[in-house]
């Protein structure tokens, strides 16, 4: 719970700092320090150190898994601040507010990762999404940004409605919000309960942008300021997935036979739509939006083949996917040209950055020796054990092959094509490069020895 308190505090802090009109540098520094603290505090909590022990067991209770997930999130968040903190200044004037909103979102993460009551799940998700509406629209003059935020808001609110209805029905069926009790010992679900279950499934599927509830994703990711897209596409999505898993694992685990097949179906649909649609994209930003849908499809496999393997895999997936995507976005943010051609000849101009991007792309494509491969591997392994697993898995890997197609288009642009004359590449600071290098190393290390991360789940 350390993170909850710290994040809330730091969020407020950042707001007040904006009043005291500090320079961007200091604001950024404070924010980065704060995020670092969040990360450390989570690690500390894993060692059993608590700033203050919240007694709210019937509302939320943090467990080992949540902590590991949270440390991954906050760690990635820290790297994200290091890489993209500077770029937020280009979005709009309210520099420190952006940070504070992100800190509040982290509070939401904590709830989503630790809820034991549907109420907390609801609150968590809302705490995450409402600031996101703002961040999406934060580029006020930019019509695309406005449009994105409005779409996001309308559809988001709509899905919130669905979730609430679901919760209400469940409550009607069982008279409680506690995840432990929503499914009776009998395990024979009433229609009311099932209806609620499915409504929640839909709304969560919406949050993680799984087909056919994914339609908002490309537009919103495309329209939002790139720095925030990076945040939404990675940490938010991952956290939402963690909540998704947590709910269907703890609350509806005993009804697996009922929803599993649908999880599988949604996963397959998501994979197909995400990957196939990405093939045709020309803008890297939109391509990444679709690829994030595709990756969501793979994470859905984790839900489909829910089990220990899937849980481990989800952590690994969270780490690998977030790291790679954050890195790519951080570079993309600074590019002048978002189209794939914009990357032509980057390897000649800046081999170091190109190399790191290559590692990230390979990881996203799931090539061995990168974390991305093992993450996918876990998911496939989990899915294969489920009913109709083989069909789903075959489709999944074929779609992975398709994903190779579009990820490698970027790779080819960087390495094998010559830059058009007059093409400008931004200059990257050494500090920036250091952080990127760190990310690349993390990806490779996790790809070769994932145990380093996963063993935290157990001791």
């Amino acid at each position, binding site marked *: 719970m350390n993170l909850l308190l710290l994040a809330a505090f730091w969020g407020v802090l950042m707001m007040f700092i904006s009043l005291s009109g500090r320079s961007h540098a200091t604001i950024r520094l404070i924010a980065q320090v704060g995020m670092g603290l969040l990360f450390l505090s989570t690690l500390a909590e894993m060692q059993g150190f608590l700033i203050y022990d919240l007694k709210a067991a019937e509302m939320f209770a943090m467990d080992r898994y949540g902590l590991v997930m949270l440390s991954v999130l906050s760690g990635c968040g820290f790297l994200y601040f290091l890489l993209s903190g500077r770029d937020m200044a280009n979005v709009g004037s309210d520099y420190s507010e952006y940070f504070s909103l992100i800190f509040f979102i982290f509070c939401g993460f904590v709830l989503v990762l630790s809820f034991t009551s549907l109420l907390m799940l609801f609150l968590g998700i809302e705490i995450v999404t409402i600031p996101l509406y703002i961040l999406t629209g934060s580029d006020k003059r930019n019509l695309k940004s406005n449009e994105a935020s409005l779409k996001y808001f*309308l559809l988001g*609110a709509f899905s919130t409605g669905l979730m609430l209805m679901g919760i209400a029905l469940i409550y009607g069926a069982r008279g409680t919000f506690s995840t432990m009790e929503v499914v009776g010992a009998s395990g024979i679900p009433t229609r009311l309960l099932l209806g609620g279950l499915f409504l929640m499934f839909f709304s969560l599927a919406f949050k993680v942008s799984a087909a056919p509830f994914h339609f908002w994703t490309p537009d919103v990711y495309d329209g939002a300021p790139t720095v925030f897209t990076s945040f939404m596409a990675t940490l938010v999505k991952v956290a939402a997935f963690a909540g998704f898993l947590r709910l269907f694992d703890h609350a509806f685990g005993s009804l697996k036979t009922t929803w599993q097949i649908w999880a599988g179906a949604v996963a397959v649909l998501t994979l197909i739509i995400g990957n196939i649609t990405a093939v045709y994209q020309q803008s890297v930003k939109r391509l990444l939006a679709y690829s994030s849908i595709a990756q969501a499809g793979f994470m859905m496999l984790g839900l489909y083949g829910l089990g220990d393997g899937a849980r481990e895999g989800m952590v690994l997936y969270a780490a690998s996917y977030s790291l790679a995507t954050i890195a790519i976005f951080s570079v993309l943010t600074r590019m002048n040209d978002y189209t794939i051609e914009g990357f032509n000849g980057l390897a000649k101009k800046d081999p170091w950055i190109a190399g790191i991007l290559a590692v990230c792309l390979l990881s996203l494509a799931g090539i061995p020796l990168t974390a991305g491969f093992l993450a996918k591997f876990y998911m496939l392994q989990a899915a294969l054990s489920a009913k109709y697993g083989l069909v789903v898995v075959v489709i999944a890997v074929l779609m992975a092959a398709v994903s190779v197609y579009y990820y490698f288009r970027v790779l080819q642009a960087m390495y094998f094509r010559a830059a058009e004359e007059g093409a400008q590449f931004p200059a990257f600071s050494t500090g920036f490069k250091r952080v990127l290098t760190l990310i690349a190393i993390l990806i490779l290390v996790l790809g070769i020895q994932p145990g380093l991360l996963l063993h935290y789940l157990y001791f």
Partner: protein
Amino acid sequence: MPINYYLFLSLALFTIGMVGVLTRRNAIIIFMCIELMLNAVNLLLVAFSKMHHLKNLALNASVGTDGQLFVFFIMVVAAAEVSVGLAIIVMMYRNIHSVDIQFLNRLKH
């Protein structure tokens, strides 16, 4: 009065809201329809909490209160959403002088 009446009523409200979202073009009205959906949920929650309260009154006097508690949270969150949402719509209006969502099609494909 049997619980089903409440159930059907609120489901009807919910559906009306949903249909509104699908059919209307004015962002404000769509937003109101969403609010309608939320309130349908509120109604349902209250009804259920009452039902559960009466059902197990013997065991525990405070049972079922949590449902009504939830309603307050929903209201709060809804209020927050309203503030943000309206802000966004206003911003929108300031830029394109319209709140018709059909004009929101710069982002597609």
